[in-house]
């Protein structure tokens, strides 16, 4: 049917195309996973802020700056006023802090580059995990050793689910550097005590918010008890809603 020339041409083309396509498919399938594409993302920030210096050397706890991590879904990057708490005096002339001072004067936000980001269709809640006393390092790596923050974990769905199925293997329990409230420490205080409220005037009405009841205690170290029975950490609607 075909001429001999055409036949060999087809054969060589196939010989070339099949392996090339195969390799590309394999590369895309394995190479473009979150572990490969997202982990190690380390953008340059507008201010050369260093966690290694602030958290590592100065020992400032994570919650000093990322305060609302235990009450809200997000763990906001701190406002400029937080920086100015110290930098009103410390290194107040430093050229590295020029942008911070400008931002404090004019009220313009510093445009930090976002590193960790889930797709908008997946909902993650920090407070839920922090109240269960899961350390930041379980999901972000040892930030206090990073000069510039880099993504350390894939943040893929498989990664979330792995931990939800088998928490004791993946959880690093709260370390002191994170400043996570671990409740009444065994031995130091009586673990049965709870906050007692006395009647108060309107202004000072208690704002207990998140820790109204006692913070969940781990019955087995590392495995927290859910505070509210949720719809389940493996239920699709927990994360996709």
């Amino acid at each position, binding site marked *: 049917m075909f001429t001999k*020339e055409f036949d*060999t041409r087809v*054969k*060589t083309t196939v*010989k*070339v195309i099949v*392996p*090339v396509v195969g*390799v590309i498919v*394999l*590369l895309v399938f*394995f*190479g473009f996973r979150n*572990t*490969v*594409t997202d*982990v190690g*993302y*380390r*953008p340059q920030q507008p201010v050369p802020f260093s966690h290694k210096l602030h958290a590592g*050397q*100065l*020992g400032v*706890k994570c*919650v*000093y700056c990322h*305060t609302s991590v235990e009450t809200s*879904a*997000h763990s*906001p990057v701190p406002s400029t*006023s937080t920086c*100015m708490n*110290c930098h*009103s*005096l410390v290194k107040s002339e430093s050229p590295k802090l020029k942008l911070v001072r400008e931002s404090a004067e004019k009220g313009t*936000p510093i*445009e930090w580059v*976002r590193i960790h980001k889930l*797709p*908008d*269709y997946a909902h993650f809640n920090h407070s839920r995990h922090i109240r269960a006393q899961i350390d930041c390092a379980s999901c972000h790596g040892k930030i206090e050793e990073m000069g510039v923050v*880099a993504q*350390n974990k894939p943040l893929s769905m498989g990664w979330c689910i792995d931990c939800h199925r088998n928490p004791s293997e993946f959880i690093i329990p709260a370390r002191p550097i994170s*400043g996570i409230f*671990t*409740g*009444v420490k065994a031995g*130091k*205080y009586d673990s049965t005590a*709870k*906050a*007692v409220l*006395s009647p*108060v005037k309107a*202004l*000072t*009405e*208690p*704002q207990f*918010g998140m820790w109204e009841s006692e913070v969940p205690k781990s019955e087995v170290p590392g495995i927290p008890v859910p505070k509210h029975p949720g719809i389940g950490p493996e239920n699709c609607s927990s994360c996709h809603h």
Partner: protein
Amino acid sequence: MEQEKSKKSIPFIKIIIGVALLGFAVVVVSGNKMWYSEDRPIEILSDMDNQFKAKPQVGSTFFADRAASRPVIEITVPRDGISYPLEKPDFERADSVIGQNPLQASDFVLARGQNRFEALCAPCHNADGKGNGKVVEKGFQNPPSLLDEHAVGLSDAHIFHIISAGQNIMPGYADKLNMNDRWTVVHYIRSMQAKR
């Protein structure tokens, strides 16, 4: 002729495959942990990863000042926060406006107070309250010891006021501590003073 052609193309294929496999192995085996990248992660299909909605701490193209979080509208009060009524120099009115500590000291309250103190105050006041925290070593003004006579003499409401609004160079912590957290810190300071 044809024979030669196909002979030539075989090493070519081998090179392609060899290089690709090598790259493949490096990429897959290492993950990206071996190197860092400043580029945005590649997205093959963006699906619905980036939806057009207001998100915390993300700029918005909708508002003129490009901030998605909106400032509090005048004469309104946020639902979850009673704003602190006094200014920094108003400490004399603290006793009458703020009154007494509504919390009773319990182990739980003290534990919480200690946790907040060590997170938010210790950089300057140090974990033992005596001053000379790590930040002071680097050039911040050294605060007076919280265990000396002057601080012991302050009323609960006055300390509450200092935490909320600050004092001289010390910044206020109203944005970082809710009302009850501030009272637990007051309790914790008192317990440190009692032990001194």
